[in-house]
């Protein structure tokens, strides 16, 4: 080529690769309780710093400290722990079910359970999430039946989506959980549209958009921010920064910026970073943003700083691109352990009760799984009718689909 090497392409690289010792020494963990809690009607310009900070509530001793503490009752916090434990146990069972060939695919939320469980606890009935594939915690927290989730995963005869969708691509209007799409990013602007509709209708419901760190690079991230900014939609825009997008580290999507949250500032949208492994912090920030939306101040962007402790999906093997022990070294710890410690510090929980709860949850899930499997698994037992394939493409089947169904002999 040209030869006289003047420019060089800069290609970001993570600090560690397989074989290296994980190194998070550059990752600054701000003190819990240190971040200020601005009034909910604050202008974005006045809280730039929160886009670079990390709001934390639970300290190393498990105490809830600082101005963001206190958003949850004891009962709510206990439910939060139970929800997270449920998600983790459910994930473990379904991962195994996939390995056993009972379904084709699975995706865990391992290590990031607090984000969706705490967030959902801050919403009101009627609010609508536009989730990605890693927000099963929203459904679990909202009380969607685990058995129905399993039926979907198994594409069995009781699958509410009739075997049409890939496992974990749930949909529940009733529980405020928008149908998951396989195409990254598309749902972020849809959340804004839903919130705009709520405003047009003079309603009081809010929407929540969800996107991964990697997917912020998608163009619909921009569409969402533009529309949310212009129309001041009552929406909470969540970025789940779990450090990885399949094999690429967050630096590929983030580039030269210090944080993902800071992307909101150029839209005049308040942007807050929160410790995504701190249940209390996520809940407090979500409540703040919900209140802000409810009072008509429009959108908030939240970056949840967490870590994807498992593989991307059952099709992935992270040992090919990151050190095996990186998850264990993640400086924000494990969300379940942290909330458990907090509850014990509060005197409302104990190791014994925890062990007992764990056993209950596990056996519940095993029982549920047995029930679900009575409805069939992907390759065995009862399953939806192939004729379902032709239904609901349109509200009423047009002639060409009727012909095709006849051709298929079903």
């Amino acid at each position: 080529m040209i030869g006289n090497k003047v420019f060089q392409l800069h290609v970001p690289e993570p600090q560690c690769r397989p074989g290296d010792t994980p190194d998070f020494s550059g990752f600054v963990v701000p003190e819990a309780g240190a971040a200020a809690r601005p009034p909910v009607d604050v202008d974005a310009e006045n809280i730039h710093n929160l886009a670079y900070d990390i709001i934390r509530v639970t300290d190393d001793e498990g105490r809830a400290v600082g101005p963001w503490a206190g958003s949850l009752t004891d009962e709510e916090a206990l439910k939060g722990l139970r929800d997270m434990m449920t998600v983790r146990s459910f994930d473990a069972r379904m991962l195994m079910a996939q390995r056993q060939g009972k379904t084709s695919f699975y995706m865990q939320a391992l290590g990031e359970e607090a984000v969706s469980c705490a967030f959902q606890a801050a919403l009101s009935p009627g609010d609508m999430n536009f989730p990605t594939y890693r927000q099963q915690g929203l459904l679990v927290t909202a009380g969607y039946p685990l058995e129905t989730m399993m039926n979907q995963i198994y594409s069995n005869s009781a699958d509410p989506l009739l075997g049409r969708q890939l496992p974990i691509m749930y949909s529940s209007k009733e529980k405020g959980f928008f149908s998951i799409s396989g195409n990254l990013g598309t749902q972020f602007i849809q959340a804004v549209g839903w919130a705009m509709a709520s405003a047009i209708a003079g309603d009081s419901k809010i929407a929540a958009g969800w996107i991964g760190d990697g997917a912020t690079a998608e163009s619909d991230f921009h569409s969402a921010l533009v529309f949310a900014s212009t129309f001041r939609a009552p929406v909470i825009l969540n970025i789940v920064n779990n450090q990885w997008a399949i094999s690429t580290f967050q630096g590929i999507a983030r580039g030269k910026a210090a944080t993902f949250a800071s992307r909101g500032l150029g839209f005049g949208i308040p942007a807050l970073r929160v410790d995504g492994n701190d249940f209390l912090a996520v809940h407090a920030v979500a409540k703040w943003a919900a209140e802000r939306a409810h009072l008509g101040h429009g959108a908030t962007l939240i970056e949840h700083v967490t870590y994807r402790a498992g593989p991307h999906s059952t099709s992935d093997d992270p040992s090919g691109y990151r050190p095996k022990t990186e998850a264990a070294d993640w400086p924000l710890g494990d969300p379940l352990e942290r909330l458990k410690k907090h509850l014990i510090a509060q005197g409302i929980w104990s190791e014994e009760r925890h062990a007992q709860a764990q056993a209950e949850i596990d056996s519940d899930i095993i029982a549920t799984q047995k029930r679900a499997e009575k409805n069939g698994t992907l390759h065995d037992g009862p399953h939806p009718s192939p004729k379902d394939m032709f239904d609901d493409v349109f509200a009423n089947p047009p002639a060409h689909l009727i012909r095709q169904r006849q051709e298929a002999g079903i």
Partner: protein
Amino acid sequence: MARMTMIEAIRDAQDICMERDDKVVVFGQDVGYFGGVFRCTKGLQEKYGPQRCFDTPINESGIVGAAIGMGAYGLRPCVEIQFADYMYPAYDQIVSEAARLRHRSNKDFIAPLTIRMPTGGGIFGGQTHSQSPEALFAHVSGLKTVIPSNPYDAKGMLIASIEDDDPVIYLEPKRLYNGPFDGHHEAAITPWSKHELGEVPEGHYTVPLGSAAIRRAGSDVTVLAYGTMVHVALAAAEETGVDAEVIDLRSIVPLDLETIKASVEKTGRCVIVHEATRTCGFGAELAALVAHHCFYSLEAPMVRVTGYDTPYPHAHEWDYFPGPARVGKALLHVMETE
């Protein structure tokens, strides 16, 4: 009854839908205060307020994506893409989202959108103001795609589209906005007020999506066309003297195959006309269907008269445009072969 242009008919349809149902909202680039670059939404913001008719940022994916969210909420958005040539940034939202939503959620959520877009050439708009992308929608399961050719249908089909619970791509042949253009670009423009289909009933009525209209009965050859090409085909029939049966498909998905079959079975010959590029255009589907369903009636090879497989040219607009001369030649040709 009133004489209307297609622009007025389209505006009237939206007005009626907004009046009857406050869930209907209209938005897009320049559609609010200004009333649209082609004026198809003129007066709607004034009448219904900026919350029901508004300008959006220039982001087609945002327009359709927001409309999908609104549809999921329970509204009934009717959005404008300024030119069909600019729908590509919205294509992912249209194909992967709007078209799939009902099916993938088992009716939990639906996308009752209407996506309006001016289509076709003949206005010296060059390659990015002249395209006819209907085939790119027709191939996508879950979308309805319709193309009116006159004010009467424009209004009735737009009301039907807005009231439809499925996403409808509503293509507006911009060369027809102000008159029934038959391809004779050198001639003076005929206004819609001189055309019987410029007669538009007042108030609410619908033209069902999926029914074709026979614009000229004939026995020699069936011409399948839609949008501007309907008028071109009629002119070609007149000028060649070929007794063509000209079918205005109006809707390409769903398609009125019965009307097509009945006609080809009668005439035994078929010419297919569209302005879009030929390869894998909707004419290919029509030819495939006719070849399959009317195999034993066909007496001569079908001919497709279409835009060439090149970008839409600026200077050579009339060389590219499938005008009456090209269609007429095809009519004579299929009459000669057998």
